C-alpha cells in the first residue's frame, strides 16, 4: 500500500470537482446568512405594517412585502434558520438512529439482524410522506415535532448502509486482528469498523439535509409545519399560493431559496460521494 493517504485523495478529487465546490460554497454562505440574519437587514421579521400590505419589490423592500406588510427579504433570511435547524437536527436524529441500529444489526447478525431488518422493511413500506403527515397533524405542529418525526422516519437508509459496511468489514483482516489481540466487541465496533463506514454515511447525511429541508417546507406549506409568526420558507410560500396572482414575489423568492439550498446540499453530497470513489481517479 503506497501512495497518498485517503484524505489527500479525497481532497484532490473534491477540489477538482467544480460543482461540488459550488455546492460547498453555497452551503457556507447559507450558514453565514442564517447566523448573521439580523445584521443583514434593518427590518425585524415580525414587523407588521398594514399600510404596506403586499407591495411589490421596491427599494425599501427588495423582495416586497407580505400579507401583513412585513419585509419578505428579512423573513426569508430568518427562514433559513428554520430550514437549516430542521435539516440538521432531523438528519442528526436519523443518522444517530440509523448508525446505532445498523451497527448492531451488521455486527451481531443472526436474529438481531433479522429483527432490525424486518423493522426497516416495515417502515419502508409506508409512503413516508403519508406517515409524516399523519404523525405531525396528530401531535402538534412545532419545530421540535417536525424535527423528530422527519428524523424518526428517515433512518432506514443510513441503517442499511452502515449494516452493509459492517457486514463487509466484519471479516476483514484488521477486524480479525483486533479481536485476536482481545479487543472487546464494542471497542472493535466503534473504533475500528465504524470510522470506515462513516464515509457513505456522510454522503447520506448531506443529501438527507436537502430532503429534510424539502419536507419541512412541504409541511409548512400545508400549514402543519412551523407556525406563524415564525417565518419558514414553506409558510411564506403558503402566502404566496394564496396570493399567487397579485404577489408573485411571495412565491418566487422563497421557492428559489429552497431550490438553492437543496441544490447546494445535493451538489455537496454528490461531490463528496464522487470524491470518495477511488476509482474516479482515472
Amino acid at each position, binding site marked *: 500500500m503506497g501512495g497518498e493517504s485517503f484524505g489527500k485523495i479525497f481532497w484532490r478529487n473534491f477540489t477538482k470537482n467544480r460543482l461540488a465546490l459550488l455546492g460547498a460554497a453555497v452551503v457556507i454562505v447559507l450558514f453565514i446568512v442564517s447566523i448573521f440574519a439580523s445584521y443583514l437587514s434593518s427590518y425585524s421579521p415580525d414587523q407588521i405594517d398594514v399600510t404596506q400590505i403586499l407591495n411589490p419589490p421596491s427599494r425599501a423592500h427588495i423582495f416586497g412585502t407580505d400579507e401583513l406588510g412585513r419585509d419578505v427579504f428579512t423573513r426569508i433570511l430568518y427562514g433559513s434558520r428554520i430550514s437549516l435547524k430542521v435539516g440538521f437536527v432531523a438528519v442528526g436524529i436519523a443518522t444517530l438512529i440509523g448508525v446505532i441500529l445498523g451497527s448492531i444489526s451488521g455486527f451481531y447478525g443472526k436474529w438481531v439482524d433479522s429483527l432490525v431488518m424486518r423493522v426497516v422493511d416495515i417502515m419502508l413500506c409506508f409512503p413516508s410522506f403519508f406517515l409524516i403527515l399523519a404523525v405531525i397533524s396528530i401531535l402538534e405542529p412545532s419545530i421540535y415535532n417536525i424535527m423528530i418525526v422527519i428524523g424518526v422516519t428517515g433512518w432506514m437508509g443510513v441503517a442499511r448502509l452502515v449494516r452493509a459496511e459492517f457486514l463487509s468489514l466484519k471479516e476483514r483482516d484488521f477486524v480479525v486482528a483486533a479481536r485476536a489481540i482481545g479487543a472487546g466487541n464494542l471497542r472493535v465496533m466503534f473504533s475500528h469498523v465504524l470510522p470506515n463506514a462513516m464515509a457513505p454515511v456522510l454522503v447520506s447525511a448531506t443529501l438527507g439535509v436537502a430532503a429534510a429541508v424539502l419536507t419541512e417546507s412541504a409541511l409548512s406549506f400545508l400549514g402543519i409545519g412551523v*407556525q406563524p*409568526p415564525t417565518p419558514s420558507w414553506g409558510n411564506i410560500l403558503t402566502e404566496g399560493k394564496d396570493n399567487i*396572482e397579485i404577489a408573485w414575489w411571495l412565491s418566487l423568492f422563497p421557492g428559489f431559496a429552497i431550490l438553492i439550498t437543496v441544490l447546494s446540499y445535493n451538489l455537496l453530497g454528490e461531490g463528496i460521494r464522487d470524491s470518495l470513489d477511488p476509482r474516479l481517479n482515472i
Partner: protein
Amino acid sequence: MMKHRLVAVFAVLILLMGSGACRKENKSALSPSQEGKVYEPEYGDTLIEGSIGDASTLLPHIASDSASHEIADLIYNGLVRYNKDLIIEGVLADSWKVSEDGLTITFNLRKNVKWHDGVPFTSKDVMFTYKLMIDPKTPTAYSGDFLRVKKAEAPDDYTFKVTYDKPFAPALITWSTWILPAHLLEGKDISNVEFGRNPVGTGPYKFKEWKTGEKIVIVSNNDYFEGRPYISRVIYRIIPDNQTMFLELQAGGVDEMGLTPLQYSRQTDTPPFRNNFQKFRYPSFGYTFLGFNLKDEKFKDKKIRHAISYAVNKKEIIDGVNLSLATESVGPYRSDMWANNPNVNKYPYNPEKSKLLFAEAGWKDSDGDGLLEKNGKKFEFTIITNQGNSMRARTAEIIQKNLKDVGINVKIRIVEWAAFLKDFIHKKNFEAIILGWSIPIEPDLYDVWHSSKTGPDELNFISFSNPEVDKLLEAGRSTFNLEERKKAYGRIQEILADEQPYVFLFVPDSLPAISARFKNIKPEPAGINYNFIKWFVPKELQKFTEMTP
C-alpha cells in the same frame, strides 16, 4: 355556529343573510352596455358554484359541514324560514298560531305540495322528522331544541301541533329544519341509508347526480309550489383550494364564489372582470372575537380586560386583515338587527389609556425593558386559534403587536381543529382565544352566555357567569313579546360591553362574485340568496343550453 375554516365561511356566506341597510356599496357591477337594459325572466342555463369541501351527506341533519347544508337548503323545505327582511315567513306551513299561554304552536300546512317522487306531503312527514330528531339513535348534533317539545301531534294531514313545557321563543324558527319524507325513510336505520347520497325533498331543486370529490348536480323541480325556478340546473364543483377556484372563476369554469378581501379589492377591478362578473358586498352573519378565559387569574379583573380592549387597534385589524372590508363589532349582534342595542360602552383604540388602566391594576414597567411587571412577574399569555383560518392567524399577529406596544408579551399558537376542541377548548386549557361565532337571526344567546353552559362540550367555555345576564337570558327566551325581548337583550348587551369577556373585533363582509349573466340578484338584509329561484339568465346570454332538467 363555529366556522373554523375561512373558506367554508365564504362558501356559506354566499347563502347567509346579510344586511343592505347600512352598507352603501351593494350595486351589481354590470358592463356599461348592459347597464339599464331590462331583461325578461327566462328559464334555462346552469349555475356552477364553487365549493371548497364536498358535502358529507345530503341528509343535512346528520351533517355539520356547510356544503351539505347549503345544498340541502335547495332540496328540502322547512315549515318556516326567514324572508329577505329577516322576518319569519311560512314555507311548508301556510300559517301558524301561537297559543295564548305561549306553550303551543299550531302549524297549518300547505296543501298540494309533492315530494320529488310525486308522493303528497302531509303532516306525517313533519311528525317523522320530529321523531327522527329526538331519536337517540340518530347521530345528529341538532336535537337540542327538539328535545324541549313536550308533545307533538298531527291531528290531520295538514295540521301539526307542538306543545312545550315553557314558552320558548326560539321554538318557532326551530321548525325551519329540513323536512324529510316519511314514506321513504320510515323504519330505516338513518345512519346506514343510501338516502343521504340520493335525497328526495320538496324543495325547488331535485337531486340529479353526485360524483364524490368532484361535483353534485341538482336540477329544477318544475312542479315546485313556489313556482318553477328559472335556473334549470345547479352544479356544485368541488375545488378544495380557494386560489384554484378563483382561477376557475376567471376561466369560466365556476360561476359563483365568495371572494377574499384581497381578491375583491385588488384582483377584480380589471375591465374584463367587471364586464363578466358582478360583485357584491354586505355584512356577513358572523363576528370574530378575542375571548378571555375568565378563570385565569390574569383576566379576572375587569380593568385588565378593559385595558386590553383599549390596546387593541380594531381599525388596524380591519384594514390589515380584511382590507377594510369589515365593520367593527361591539357586541354579539349586527347593528341592523332588531335586538341590537347601539348604546353600549365602546373601547376606541387608546394605548395611553390602556397603560393607565394597567398601572391602576398594579402592572408597571419597573425595569425599563418595555414589558409590564407586577410583583416580579411579567404579563404574558398565549393566544390560541385554529388552523386553516389565515384571517384569524393574522388577527392574532396584529393583536400581538398591539399588546407589545403597551408592554405585554403575547405568544401565538395555532392548533389543528380537532385537537383545538378536545385539548384546549373542552378542557378550558387556554388563556385567550380568537374565534368566531355566527350571528343568529334569532337573538337567543342562552347557549353561549348562560352560566350553566360551561360543561366540557358546551359553548360558554370562557366560564362567563353573571346572575343578571342569566335572568335576562331566561326572560328573553320565555316570552314571544318582542318589546320585552328587546329590553332584555338590550340590557344584556350593556352588561357584556361593560364586562368585556370578549374583545369584540369585527364583522367581515360577504364578498360574492357571480357571473354577469345572472340577473335579478338584489342584496337585502338577508343577503342575496333569498330569491335564488327567481334568478335567471336571459336567453341570449345563456351558456349551457342543452340539458334535461
